[in-house]
């Protein structure tokens, strides 16, 4: 129990089925608070499935079924008493390909806040500014807040999506391949941002880029065929992995 409370996210024997197909096989792990945890593994191994199970985005898939427990802040998120809307407000998510809403930059940021409560213009302005600053976008867009967010570059759009997620002040940020559609410079900016944000947020990151996992994460988990093969400190995974499969995957990639 003590361990459960310490870990921000705790999965125990967690399995996911898409109709008859099992996508996750009894995954058990603890994700600590205010650290960056990365998941790596070949395509189709269930990384996104695990990530989307944390904020219950998988509920949207028809025919999905879970087993085991997914505990966030000591509460099983699949418990009946959990309101999925509240849950998702506390757990932000950034997608691989998440285009901004077809609204202005300003409205993109304020959208999440205005869902439940009325805020004054001054409050909104302040949050827009602070979240854009924290996502390192403020300088680039401060003069065109009223313009359409779709006019931003891909890298700017992704940082806007991060700003949009942190504007509602979540505890956890889930990122599913946030940089896979970005150029190296934009990727660098987002990575920098992740390192800064981990002081405030618990970040869970899925990536195909092994260097990225090595650069930004504190812990790394390796998935293969729906199973969590190894989960340890990033340094340990990349220097002396305990499992043969992990080593094969990492060395294979680095060639």
């Amino acid at each position: 129990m003590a361990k459960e409370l310490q870990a921000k996210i705790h999965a125990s024997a967690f399995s996911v089925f898409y109709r008859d197909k099992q996508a996750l096989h009894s995954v058990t792990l603890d994700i600590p608070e205010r650290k960056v945890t990365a998941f790596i593994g070949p395509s189709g191994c269930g990384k996104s499935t695990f990530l989307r199970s944390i904020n219950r985005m998988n509920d949207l898939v028809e025919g999905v079924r879970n087993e085991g427990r997914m505990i966030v802040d000591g509460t099983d998120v699949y418990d009946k008493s959990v309101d999925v809307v509240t849950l998702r407000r506390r757990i932000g998510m950034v997608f691989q390909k998440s285009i901004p809403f077809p609204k202005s930059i300003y409205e993109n940021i304020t959208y999440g806040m205005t869902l439940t409560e009325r805020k004054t213009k001054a409050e909104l302005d302040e949050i827009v500014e602070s979240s854009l600053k924290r996502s390192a976008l403020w300088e680039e867009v401060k003069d065109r807040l009223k313009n359409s967010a779709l006019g931003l570059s891909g890298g700017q759009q992704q940082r806007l999506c991060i700003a949009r997620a942190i504007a509602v002040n979540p505890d956890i940020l889930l990122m599913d391949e946030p940089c896979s559609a970005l150029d190296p410079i934009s990727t660098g900016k987002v990575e920098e941002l992740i390192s800064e944000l981990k002081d405030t947020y618990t970040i869970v990151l899925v990536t195909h880029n092994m260097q990225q996992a090595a650069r930004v994460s504190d812990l790394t988990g390796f998935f293969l065929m729906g199973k969590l093969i190894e989960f340890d400190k990033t340094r340990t995974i990349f220097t002396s992995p305990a499992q043969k499969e992990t080593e094969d995957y990492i060395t294979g990639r680095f060639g």
Partner: protein
Amino acid sequence: MTNPFRKERKFIGEFLAEWSIRIVASLSIVIIFLIFFFVFREAASLFTTMNVGTANSKTETPAPRSADAQAAAPEQYSAETYGDAPETYGESDGAAEQYNPAVEVEPLPGTNILTPLNMNYPEIYNPETGSLPADINDPTPMGTFSVTEQPLSLWENLTSNVWQPVGVQPKFGMIPLLIGTAKTTVIAILLGAPLGILAAIFTAFFAPARVRNIVKPAIELLAGFPSVVVGFFCLVTVASFIQDNFDNTFRLNALVGGIGLALAVIPIVYAIAEDSLSAVPRTLWEASLALGSTKWQTAYRVMLPAAAPGVFAAVLLGIGRAFGETMIAIMATGNAALNSWSAFAPARTFAATIGSEMGEVVWGSEHYGVLFLLGTILFVVSFSLNAVTELYVKKRLIKRFQGR
């Protein structure tokens, strides 16, 4: 241990709004189907009440034609059935003696067929001309014009407010037609657009795939529903329903016609709105939900605005359909060119005017020309609606998703 993810929603209003929208949307789908189901039900009554003919046999049995049958005639056509005829039906003075059993004049074979079966019409229906007067409250009988009236210029004539194209001095005032068209179109859109859009939102985002796969093609098929059947349904069922509930003077009126046109509009609005709503990238739906919004908030704050050009197009095309629909407008509106904005007064639309007068017009006459003018207006309006839809919507969609 307290649950950190318990419901923190404070606004009961939002909760109520969400559920009422959910209920209204599902209801609108159910209603759409029920309406069309009722059309079939009207036909089904034919089979369930086959004894209609025998129950009314007194009035429906044709006159005896053969010599032996004539003997039975006096009993069959008793005063009870036809006794009132002479007073109410002026044209058949001669028939009064014929059908009075007391006088015992031998009825001529076959004459009974000419006797109108419905005795309620004489004040309204003129069997001589076969036409209904424009306004049954109008004290002047149809066709009596003062010959001393000043002839009007064409423009004055077209902008006057009487449409009486046949007469000593034909009047081609388009104002009543304009009012009639506007009345019915507005009613049709006010009813049809919200129903169609709500149904589209429901199937695009809320209904499980299984339901959607049935409902979507089904509603779209209704777009091909023959309008004469819809018109007939309104003429019979909707008109009675409205009369029972509103106690209106005119059985057929703009409201009945508007409901009929709405039936034609709904499938069109639905089909186009559905397509444009489902064309909005699914990533927007997920991104909004991940921010902690409810499905309804996502639907009306993200998806609907993103699909706004398409939904707008759906409404425009719906207007075009209501505007140009002919058969329903002829059958269900009362088809009388009144100069009244009341929803409970009959209306005559442009399309219905062409539809009901073109067949009898003198080729090349002024009336003929005016009908073609109406046709041109119809064409121009429909064409502009479609053009606006095409040009505006394409541009806006591109702008929306590429941000240029």
